[in-house]
């Protein structure tokens, strides 16, 4: 570490003198500046997390204050991991995660690739495309239920217009087969711009001279795409996937407004199920264990993924 002249002078100055001359020491200031943030996070994030862990070993119910709380050991965890319903929800979550990521990567990358051709007005159009992802998912999701209505909705009308399938013959949110796709469509509509923006940054980070060199070597455009563009954008793309993966694993607002988990339990994503257990059935202990399992899953998957991401970056 190189030291600035200031720190050297400051260290040479006797402590009481420096305090009088320069006010608080740097170290004191550093702690005064950092402490409130750490304190707030401990109080509103870590303390509740520890509390959740504690509750997960009990049969506590938040709506029955007088009932005696018993320690039940690992029973909550056992019940969750052997519950078929929860595995169904995990499958619904996996379906949602997989398809939203696939579609958003494909469409987002293509858009970024096209925008990177720097046609006139590309900045303006990028700003317009970005709008959906900045809006409130709950409010927008609620309005999508209107667009999806079988009798009057715009989506069904457009489908009828282009394919001839009668608009009132299907219901995107009411059908067991269509509903899982309906939520994928809205999420893709909303979050493709996110992937697009990150890919665009990746594309713009590739210096022109690499392509020039390839051109001189007479590499075909196809070959340039696969050996220059894709590998250089990959770290960015993987970062985008990480963000979307974490966010969609936690997905609540958009889907709860669209389907509320129905029809049946076909779109009952893990967080929506967790909300039902915790705040409708009031099984506080059980749902705490559920929350811990979800948190450990997302944290574990994200850590493995970040390791892979760093390997790609090193190459």
């Amino acid at each position, binding site marked *: 570490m190189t030291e600035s002249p*200031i720190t050297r002078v400051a260290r040479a100055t006797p402590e009481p003198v420096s305090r009088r001359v320069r006010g608080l020491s740097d170290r004191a200031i550093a702690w005064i500046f950092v402490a409130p*943030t750490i304190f707030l996070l401990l109080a509103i994030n870590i303390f509740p997390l520890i509390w959740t862990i504690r509750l997960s070993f009990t049969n506590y119910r938040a709506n029955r204050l007088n009932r005696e709380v018993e320690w039940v050991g690992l029973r909550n965890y056992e019940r969750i991991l052997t519950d078929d319903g929860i595995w169904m929800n995990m499958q619904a979550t996996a379906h949602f995660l997989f398809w939203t990521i696939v579609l958003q990567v494909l469409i987002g990358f293509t858009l970024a690739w096209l925008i990177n051709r720097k*046609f006139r007005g590309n900045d303006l159009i990028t700003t317009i495309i*970005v709008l959906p992802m900045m809006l409130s998912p709950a409010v*927008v999701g609620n*309005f999508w239920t209107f667009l999806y209505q079988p009798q009057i909705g715009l989506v069904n009308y457009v489908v009828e217009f282009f394919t001839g399938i009668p608009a009132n013959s299907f219901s995107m949110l009411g059908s067991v087969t269509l509903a899982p796709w309906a939520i994928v469509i809205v999420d893709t509509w909303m979050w493709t711009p996110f992937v697009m923006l990150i890919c665009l940054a990746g594309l713009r980070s590739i210096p022109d001279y690499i392509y020039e060199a390839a051109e001189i070597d007479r590499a075909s455009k196809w070959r340039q795409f696969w050996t220059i563009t894709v590998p250089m954008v990959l770290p960015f793309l993987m970062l985008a996937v990480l963000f979307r993966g974490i966010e969609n694993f936690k997905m609540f607002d958009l889907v709860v*407004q669209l389907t509320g988990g129905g029809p049946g339990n076909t779109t009952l994503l893990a967080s929506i199920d967790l909300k039902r257990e915790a705040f409708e059935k009031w099984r506080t202990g059980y749902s705490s264990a559920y929350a811990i399992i979800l948190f450990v899953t997302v944290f574990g998957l994200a850590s493995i993924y970040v390791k892979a991401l760093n390997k790609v970056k090193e190459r």
Partner: protein
Amino acid sequence: MSAYSITEPSSRAKWTAGILVTLYAVITMVPLLWIVATGFKTPSDAISYPPKVFFEPTVEGYVNVFTTRTRLSPEALAALPPPANFAEEIVRQYDMVIAGPSRFGERFLNSVIIGFGSTFLSIFLGTLAAYAFSRFKIPLKDDLLFFILSTRMMPPIAVAIPIFLMYRQLGLSDTHLGMILLYTAVNISLAVWLLKGFIDEIPREYEEAALIDGYTRFQAFYKVVLPQAATGIASTAIFCLIFAWNEYAFAVLLTSGTAQTAPPFIPTIIGVGGQDWPAVAAGATLFLVPVMVFTILLRKHLLRGITFGAVRK
């Protein structure tokens, strides 16, 4: 301008790209434009099939979202004096009178109070922490920074249970203060990471010069660093505000009456036989437009904001 470059796309490639991207932009805007348009329709226009693209605009949706109405018998209506204003006139067409204001105004105001309150607090705490992380040697600095980031990975519902219990104990449930603290805790990770990036870019020499001139550390911080970081602070603030403005999960779980914000409220606007779509759309428009304006203002820093400063252009 450089001379002809072999990497510059041909003008045909540019045109095709431009057309395809514009087409996507148009399709993606349809739902948003539909929200705005529905806000100006009458309920019967809103639910007509085929959907109406051209219609006679009315502010009925806006009147309905701000008022509650009661139906009167024809005799009672006939006895009333003529309508005093345009809102009253619209409502009378349906044999109704305005009974009072709806809760929408209140909810919107809650969103403003909680949004700005938590943004102010996140920026205040975040700037201090970011400055310290950027400039001072702090033991376990990287671990602390990662810890701050990792709090964002937690599913809101996972911590909502104990926060619900804790707030019940402390009397913070359904209060503005409780929601402001909560949103600050969620936003502070973003604020610290973004602001650290912005402050890292300010050369240390400025402060060192100020320190030699006899400023204290503190003076150097607010007289030299803060003005330099102003743009960064402003864009971070807008990101925090947008998050707090849009947040739904905590709002729906922890607020019900006094401190409820607009996102849980708007979907509950109902009329006769289900949701009153023009009123919902009117409320949604009023709620979404500020964010659209902010997004346009932010466009230069958008990428940085959405990736926690991981990607800088």
